[in-house]
């Protein structure tokens, strides 16, 4: 892939990102942040791609750390986001009707 194609992807992704994220309500900003924590764990892929090229103890140790860091992001980020979002979802008794119906209707 040429650099210019990659920069095109980068720019388009930025626009899509702004478009999607700006619709997230204030209520969900904390789960949004922990969710993006999980998504930037994608750097794990970089660690995976470089491991077989590594030479020497230092590089191997560093890459194991990088992979572990990326995994912490992905596993921890998605799990904690899920935990939070379930709290927003569950609602046993509710005084106001409209939101109630919305929940039941899912």
């Amino acid at each position: 892939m040429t650099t210019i194609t990659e920069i095109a992807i980068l720019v388009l992704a930025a626009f899509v990102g702004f478009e999607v994220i700006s619709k997230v309500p204030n209520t969900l900003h904390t789960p949004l942040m922990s969710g993006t924590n999980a998504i930037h764990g994608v750097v794990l892929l970089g660690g995976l791609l470089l491991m077989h090229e590594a030479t020497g103890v230092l590089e191997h140790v560093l890459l194991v750390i990088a992979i572990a860091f990326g995994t912490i992001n992905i596993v921890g980020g998605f799990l904690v986001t899920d935990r939070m979002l379930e709290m927003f979802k569950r609602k046993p008794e509710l005084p106001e009707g409209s939101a109630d119906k919305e929940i039941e209707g899912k």
Partner: protein
Amino acid sequence: MIVATLFIQRLNFIDACYIVAFSLFIYGMSGLTGPRTAPRGNKIAAAGMAIAIVATLFTPHVLSGSSTPWLIALGLVIGTAVGVPAARNVRMTAIPQMVALFNGVGGGAVAIIAWIEYRHHFASGASLWVEKSQIPTLFAAIVGSISFWGSNIAFGKLQEILPGRPIKLPGQSIINGVLFVICVGSAIVLAAGTHSQGLFIVGILLAAALLGNMVVLPIGGADMPVVISLLNAFTGLSAAAMGIALNNTAMIVAGMIVGASGTILTNLMAKAMNRSVPAIVAGGFGGAIAAPAAAGAEDRGPVRSTSAQDVAIQLSYARQVVIAPGYGMAVAQAQHAVRELEKALETKGVTVKFAIHPVAGRMPGHMNVLLAEADVPYDLLKEMDEINPEFGRTDVTLVIGANDVTNPAAKNEPGSPIYGMPILEVDQSGSVIVLKRSMASGFAGIDNPLFYEPKTALLFGDAKQSVSDITSEVRAL
């Protein structure tokens, strides 16, 4: 079978998987637009991540070499062993720390990967000009390193290992400027290819590390929502840059989404505090204003304190009560007690609403998560613009552990350091009850004239205990 093997070997398969993966990231994130679709969105994004990881493992050579698969497995196991219990056990009050830490490890991973990529491809020095991936690699090294160290400092402040007050050196901004110039200058020297020393990259990483420390140390606790969002954006952008260097579309798109998210949140938070991002990064919310705050405290006159019983009577006979929670509610773990009070009041026919300031707490949306944890229905949570016109119709406002976001000085006193910051206009309601531990000023160190108003009464004590006391008094009425 042969066709399939060819397909995999020609990399189309991997690229196709990446396209599926980043589509799922975007689709998953778009689920976060509502609480109802959000859990599914999160799971979809996680599925995208799983596809990206598996596809990467299938990439030719990735598992070649006798020790490579084991080392990869080791990294994955360590990460899972740390990540799962952390995510399971973290308290909702500690989410800001955890997000800061996760930002940090993400930035650290980027910096390490950039360093190793650099060692392999550019340390020899030959024909550096033509290597297109060098500039993004250097960018990722600098920004990743800043994010790692900055996030660790932010974590230390939030976890109260480090003092939340701004820590400032003389000539701080000059030092920061010099460090920045060292980072960028060294990167340009490296990219120009006239010097080939591998040590340069280490120098860049170290200068960026120092810069990360120096930038976050002077930022006060009240500015934490901005800092966390900013570091989030940094980590995302560095991951996207690394994606360009490694020709990895999944990394480019995912990193950019995170970058966009962090940028949006940073701007929202800065706007909610009426401060510019550069001013916050330049440092020192509390530092500059501690002195006028102390001076102002003396001539405000006495405060009126009240008892749980009086508060309970006032609340029970109100038509509408608004609860304005702040970080103090989180510290006291009072969210469940608050939910009980809300229920007790509703059985008495009182309308209860929650007023959520965008920067209440230590990160964007922090109060919403805490109240959701306590099962408060999210339609009772009102954002600032929605609730401010309602204060005039509100009989009693109960301020729980919030201070600066209710400070009328932001509207009335042009000399105040927070003048111009949008606030919850609690002083418009019939009467105000403030739950406080003591008369100490808020995280920003600014005195709050609200406490001295005749319609304001203060109930001193631990927020959780106070709320529980009020609840039992309400029930006894």
